[in-house]
């Protein structure tokens, strides 16, 4: 099975990595005390590990190139049949619903809390998915709208005592407003120019929040943001967490519902067409400007909504929570989950938010593993975990009937 050439190749790879990691992994210098620490053990470890991993790497790449098509189609058709089976479908949905409802009562407040975070990222992901996944506009400053939502609740509550439930629509509207505000100037830009301008926009919002103390209280942030109240009853922290969880579940349902409807509508099709071919899209009579602005506004509205929840959940916000890295994470989770697919985005959000939490045991290594996982995931499954499902329309001869 292992040919000599393969082994030689792996030895070469192993030697290369030993060379590559030599200064960083082996030598540790103390520039102050002027001592040098040689850690040869690391080099040996790297050598052995890369020798074996290179076999695995090549095997996986080959697997990806062929073979995968055949096997998968079989597996997926089996999967499809099971999923299509209405009995299975119903019972699984019921099961999932049960799980969702039982979750906070079965698991600890901590689990509920991080699940709420994950759900928040589901909403964020689905919102950004409208902009990137559907309309194909690469937005690297999405976190700005998240910040807008969070600050609108925090500030309105601080100054005018606006409650959480009043802030939700306000946050969403302000998010949408800022979406349009960003949308207008960048309409002419394409691809990566758009990406960098949105990145710049995100940074500008953060910098304003950081420096304009009179408005945003600067980096010391806003504390004591109240959690939502339950018809005026004071809830304990356990109950509040459960309550937040259910609010978030409802918001996720709302988001999925709305995004699904949008995707399957005249506007949604226009977004997808815009992503496919801008020139043809315009030639088909679609107003590019309007369609893009719709995408920015609807996408940003969800970020605003999630921002309000974030502020309530954390009870303290400052600009440091809204950095570019956050945008990158939201973008990554939708690409990793499967761009354009609602189910994929949900999966991506859960993996991205829960994985680092559960990797806490590895503490120091978790971000390392996280970064490596992102790369490997893209290399071996660039379309994301879940592929976008195509929508079919069933047509009878009398005309069309639609089937999902």
């Amino acid at each position: 099975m292992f040919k000599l050439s393969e082994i030689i190749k792996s030895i070469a790879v192993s030697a290369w990595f030993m060379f590559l990691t030599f200064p960083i992994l082996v030598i540790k210098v103390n520039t102050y005390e002027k001592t040098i620490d040689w850690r040869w053990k690391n080099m040996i470890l790297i050598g052995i590990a890369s020798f074996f991993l290179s076999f695995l790497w090549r095997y996986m790449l080959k697997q990806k190139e062929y073979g995968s098509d055949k096997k998968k189609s079989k597996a997926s058709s089996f999967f499809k049949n099971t999923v299509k089976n209405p009995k299975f479908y119903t019972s699984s949905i019921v099961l999932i619903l049960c799980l969702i409802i039982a979750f906070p009562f079965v698991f600890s407040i901590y689990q509920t809390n991080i699940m709420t975070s994950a759900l928040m990222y589901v909403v964020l992901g689905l919102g950004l998915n409208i902009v990137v996944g559907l309309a194909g506009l690469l937005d690297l400053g999405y976190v700005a709208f998240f910040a807008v939502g969070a600050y609108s609740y925090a500030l309105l509550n601080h100054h005018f005592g606006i409650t959480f439930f009043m802030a939700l629509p306000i946050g969403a509207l302000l998010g949408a407003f800022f979406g349009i505000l960003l949308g207008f100037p960048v309409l002419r830009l394409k691809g990566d120019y758009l990406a960098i301008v949105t990145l710049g926009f995100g940074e500008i919002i953060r910098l304003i929040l950081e420096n304009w103390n009179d408005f945003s209280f600067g980096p010391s942030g806003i504390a004591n943001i109240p959690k939502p109240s339950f018809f005026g009853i004071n809830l304990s922290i356990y109950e509040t967490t459960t309550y937040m969880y259910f609010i978030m579940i409802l918001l996720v349902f709302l988001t999925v519902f709305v995004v699904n409807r949008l995707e399957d509508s005249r506007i949604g099709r226009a977004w997808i067409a815009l992503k496919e071919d801008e020139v043809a899209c315009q030639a088909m009579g679609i107003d590019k400007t309007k369609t893009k602005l719709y995408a920015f506004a609807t996408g940003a509205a969800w970020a605003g909504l999630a921002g309000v929840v974030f502020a309530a959940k954390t009870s303290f916000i400052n600009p440091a929570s809204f950095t570019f890295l956050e945008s990158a994470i939201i973008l990554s989770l939708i690409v990793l989950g499967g761009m354009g697919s609602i189910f994929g985005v949900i999966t991506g959000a859960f993996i991205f938010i829960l994985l680092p939490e559960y990797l806490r045991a590895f503490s120091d290594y978790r971000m390392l593993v996280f970064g490596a996982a992102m790369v490997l995931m893209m290399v071996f499954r660039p379309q994301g975990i879940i592929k976008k499902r195509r929508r079919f329309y069933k047509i009878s001869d009398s005309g069309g009937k639609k089937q999902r």
Partner: protein
Amino acid sequence: MEYFAELFLGGLTRGSIYALIAIGYTMVYGIIELINFAHGEIYMIGAFTALIAASVFNFLGFGQITVFLLATAVAIIYSAAYGFTIEKIAYKPLRNAHRLSPLISAIGMSIFLQNYVMLAQTSNFVRFPKLIPDFEFIEPVAHIIGSSEIVIFVVAAIVMLALTFLIKFTKTGKAMRATAQDKTMAMLIGINVDFIISITFIIGSAIAAIGGVLIAAHIGQINFYIGFVAGIKAFTAAVLGGIGSIYGAALGAFVLGWTESFATGYVSSDYEDLFAFSLLVIILIFKPEGLVGKSTAPKV
């Protein structure tokens, strides 16, 4: 007037550093249309390798200039090796995938490399050895400009000239230009596209390493996170100038450096970055292809 000159020079220093990093971004973008987010990390690894190498060479008792040159050489070699390897691992398998996939891969690579250096070395700031010798200047110049600034301008200028020569006149340079224009066509006329892409990564990374060594020697400290901020700024510079163009990257870098320097000097450093990003947004709104980018009518 003296104040103006000082700010101008400060901007020039910043601009030179941004330019050295931005060139790598713009070259990679020009050839495979990828925002290589891990490029800032290459710069950081360059600085770290130089630090380690310099310490070892200092330990062995070499003279200051020798250490400087040797450490820079080691940094260049290692950064180039990292750039080469990253391309092979994280981008090459994705060449036919959707455009966003390599971008995510790049972000992942960036996170990985930061943590790799943090775990293998330290999360603290470390002192960077004094590599650039102090020339004795006579007042009133001495308090305006130091030797590290001069070295930075000179090296940046030499690198840019050499790169221009390489791209304009050598065979590899021509092949790079051809690949950037049309990959399929380049392949058809017998250019080894994979090789050219590797070369691009190697050159871009080597230049970033030079930037890393110079700036680390200038400010005297590094940690694993320095690549991120510098990377974003350099990327901004590359886009500002018109991504894909080397002149553009250099021009964008200097414009950005001066903007930041003058904004700090005449307005407030509170809004230094705000000015930088606002300038970017404004320029792109009025000139969507960047400063030197050519506007192309859509091909229909």
